[in-house]
């Protein structure tokens, strides 16, 4: 302490003697940076946070560094010495500049920079004043680099909450705060073009945000993926900004490319605003880097190929290919299995005839359904109700209708009802070509049944499609449909494959009866979904529907040889049952999201934006799980990862609050969060490390180890203050 006072006194005299600002507040070697510490308020208030600023004022030509210093350099670190239990958050980094040093590029600040930090003051505090101490270490460079370390202190009185007046620096701190980067109000993705070693960042945002932008620059958060000195040519059209970058040393293409997008508007130097960006990786693309390419390729004829690629065809092509693969894999997912089993059975039954028309009909049914899904998403994605993969399951009436359908199909396989014979009057064409119409219908059903499942490849393709114009979204969705229908279509047009199927026989009757049970199981599962969506009233509606349909089926069987008016009673009864029960399910009160007997394993709270904001403001770590009862992928992840004891223990050890957002029914707050992270549907897993750090997005397929790894410390945009000596 004595040393400090002496130093201050000495500094005062030196300053008074006209040594000027180059002489720092500490007697000793010459420093190239003046370091100051000041607070927004004139006193600390118990239970509140106070914003403090470390100000670095550089000599002309000298600079200090951003959190990612670029090709060389080192960011400032602040080691706080705080009394009692005051705690400091990370540095809130202002927008850096690109500093070109010969062939290198560094990210930092010249002239002056204000580094804000939030300090949390505990409820109880002893004494009349507190002294905040900061050891500020930084590298300052011009042609040469010098590491400097400075100690600064600030003593503030303690005043009761709400009584501290703004300090003389309040305006300066407010100005610094308003210039901090904010989360991008839009979505971002990126694609890589490995042969060209290029990356393309694609940002979709409000046209207003992109209006009059004359320059854009992406500052990667960490070293490795992006080359720092390369120019970043920009293109803006229709609410979309593309930025072409060069790959960095590691050539890594992480699932998320994180960094800061800085947009410059206006004349002269212009006005710069920064947006934190977490761009999800889309499929590799031949389009990335085409702005880079100075006209022409290496070989003859490749020029034409390249210019076609520049039109965006190949990028979409790869997305559609991914969608196709994902669609094919959907067939292996449990959702669709019961429906497909039915089809295989039908093939076996009629092997003596050709199956080609039926295969085409099935394809038609699938494509119409996927097209309809795409159309719905396009029609609604501008509106408030954000739709996504599986959105139709958010309607209880839809779920109940589907459950009833599976139940009836089960009854049909069990031999309780038989369609066809008793339905002559309903439509001649239907009975004459029952196969083809049936196949079309099966295609529709299979597509609908598939939506609660997510297959590998699909996430990337659908996620990419969501950020793209409507025609690309449609192309990707139809690609998904094609892939999905492919196995059945191939089976239908290949006589060779049909020969593999066993000969029809009595075994088929047994198989048919056995196959009824997967359908009953599916119906049972849908009723469970309904129980979460619509509570006990929803289950009651389902029970009524099942009893009503069962009665109608029995009646239909009983009245098969009666007169026409009598025969019509059964179908009329079935329709009436649905007319009563569907609205009943739809309007049932949603019960609390606290569901499931397993909830005690991992203490969870329902997700609300307010709760998340509150926890984040407190600087507490939060894990967010956005899920839905109908999302089978979500359920599997919860089973194998989130509900395991190792994850539970890791969460408890790290003091993580677990927020579960249930998208089983539409929830605008959850849709909004999904959209902010460029997602079209659940699952979405987010980890907010706390202390103001940026959230991390976890993959859609989880393991316990992966979750535990992810909640450990990693480099982030706002670093915990001390990195030295660690």
């Amino acid at each position, binding site marked *: 302490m004595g040393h400090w006072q002496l130093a201050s006194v000495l500094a005062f005299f030196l300053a008074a003697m006209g040594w000027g600002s180059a002489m720092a507040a500490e007697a000793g070697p010459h420093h190239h940076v003046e370091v100051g510490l000041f607070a927004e308020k004139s006193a600390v208030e118990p239970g509140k946070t106070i914003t403090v600023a470390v100000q670095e004022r550089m000599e002309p030509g000298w600079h200090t560094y951003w959190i990612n210093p670029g090709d060389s350099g080192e960011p400032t670190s602040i080691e706080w010495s705080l009394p009692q239990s005051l705690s400091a958050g990370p540095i809130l980094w202002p927008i850096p500049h690109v500093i070109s040093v010969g062939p290198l590029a560094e990210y930092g600040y010249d002239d002056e920079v204000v580094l804000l930090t939030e300090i949390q003051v505990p409820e109880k505090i002893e004494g009349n004043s507190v002294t905040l101490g900061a050891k500020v270490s930084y590298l300052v460079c011009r042609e*040469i680099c010098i590491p400097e370390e400075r100690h600064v202190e600030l003593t503030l009185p303690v005043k009761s909450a709400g009584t501290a007046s703004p300090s003389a620096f309040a305006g300066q701190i407010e100005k610094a705060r308003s210039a901090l980067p904010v989360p991008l109000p839009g979505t971002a993705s990126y694609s890589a073009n490995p042969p060209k070693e290029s990356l393309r960042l694609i940002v979709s945002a409000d046209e207003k945000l992109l209006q009059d932008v004359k320059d854009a620059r992406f500052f990667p958060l960490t070293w490795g993926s992006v080359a720092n000195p390369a120019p970043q040519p920009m293109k803006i059209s229709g609410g979309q900004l593309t930025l072409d970058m060069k790959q960095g040393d590691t050539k890594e293409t992480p699932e998320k490319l994180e960094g800061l997008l800085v947009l410059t508007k206006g004349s002269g130097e212009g006005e710069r605003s920064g947006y934190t960006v977490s761009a999800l990786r889309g499929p590799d693309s031949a389009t990335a880097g085409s702005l880079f390419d100075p006209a022409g390729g290496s070989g003859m004829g490749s020029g034409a190929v390249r210019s076609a690629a520049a039109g965006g065809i190949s990028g979409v092509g790869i997305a559609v290919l991914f969608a196709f693969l994902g669609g094919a894999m959907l067939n292996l997912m449990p959702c669709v299995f019961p429906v497909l089993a039915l089809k295989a059975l039908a093939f076996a039954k009629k092997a003596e005839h050709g199956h080609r028309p039926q295969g085409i009909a099935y394809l038609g049914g699938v494509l119409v359904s996927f097209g309809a899904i795409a159309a719905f998403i396009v029609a609604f994605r501008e509106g408030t109700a954000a739709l996504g993969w599986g959105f139709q399951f958010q309607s209880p009436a839809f779920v109940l209708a589907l459950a009833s359908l599976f139940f009836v199909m089960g009854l049909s396989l069990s031999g309780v009802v038989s369609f066809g014979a008793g339905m002559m009057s309903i439509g001649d064409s239907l009975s004459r070509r029952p196969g083809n119409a049936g196949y079309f219908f099966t295609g529709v059903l299979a597509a609908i049944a598939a939506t609660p499942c997510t297959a590998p490849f699909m996430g990337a393709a659908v996620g990419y499609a969501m950020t793209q114009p409507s025609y690309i979204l449609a192309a990707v969705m139809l690609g998904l449909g094609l892939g999905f229908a492919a196995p059945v279509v191939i089976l239908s047009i290949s006589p060779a494959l049909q020969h593999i199927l066993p000969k029809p026989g009595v075994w088929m009757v047994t198989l048919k009866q056995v196959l009824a049970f997967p359908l009953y199981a599916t119906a049972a599962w849908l009723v469970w979904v309904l129980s979460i969506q619509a509570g006990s009233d929803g289950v009651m509606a389902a029970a009524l529907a099942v009893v009503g349909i069962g009665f109608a089926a029995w009646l239909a069987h009983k009245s098969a040889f009666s007169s026409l008016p009598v025969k019509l009673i059964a179908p009329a009864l079935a329709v009436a049952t649905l007319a009563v029960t569907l609205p009943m399910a739809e309007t049932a009160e949603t019960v609390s999201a606290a569901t499931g007997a397993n909830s005690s394993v991992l203490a969870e709270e329902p997700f609300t934006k307010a709760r998340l904001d509150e926890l984040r403001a407190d600087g507490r770590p939060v894990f967010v799980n956005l899920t839905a009862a109908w999302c089978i992928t979500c359920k599997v992840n919860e089973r194998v990862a989130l509900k395991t004891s190792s994850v539970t223990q890791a969460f408890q050890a790290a003091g993580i609050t677990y927020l579960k957002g249930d998208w089983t029914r539409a929830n605008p707050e959850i849709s909004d969060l999904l959209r902010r992270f460029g997602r079209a549907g659940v699952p979405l897993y987010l980890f907010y490390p706390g202390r103001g750090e940026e959230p991390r997005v976890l993959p859609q397929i989880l393991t316990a180890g992966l979750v535990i790894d992810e909640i450990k410390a990693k480099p982030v945009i706002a670093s915990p203050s001390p990195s030295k000596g660690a």
Partner: protein
Amino acid sequence: MTAAAYADPEVGKPAPGFSAVDSNGESVKLSDYRGKTVVLEWTNDGCPYVKKHYSSNNMQTLQKEAAAKGAVWLTIISSAPGAQGYLTGDEANKLTETRGAASAAVVLAPEGGLGHLYDARTTPHMFIVNAEGTLVYMGGIDDAATTDVADIKTAKNYVRTALDDLAAGAPIETAVTRPYGCSVKYKTAS
């Protein structure tokens, strides 16, 4: 002169060949060392990050270890005349003596060509070329991007690990890392 004008070196590909002059006026050619592991170290004795590794004897120890394994260690100075770290042959030899360095040669490359050929960005910036002439490592000397000598003890030294991997005939676990330090004080384009 921009980095983009050169094809950047890539791990797993042939290391760019070069012929340069050392502090004794002798010619140094990469191809002469075919059959041996070659370590390239970009240096600037005025840079605090370089000082960290020399004042602690960390760099010299590593140079001796490499020599014991039969590797050839080339220390390269790419600082332009007048810039920090620039040395004449005599000055370089004197420095080698005073700091007890154990590199096979100190290459003087003030024109910047060699540095740009390897896209050397920082001091120190390390490269390792294997016996077949393939670039097998590029990046930092370790993972502690600070000027604090105390950090050397706890840092993971990538160059040592890579040399051990090479000696054991194993693939190099971490082949590309972040180079850290001061920028190389290249001759500025006129």
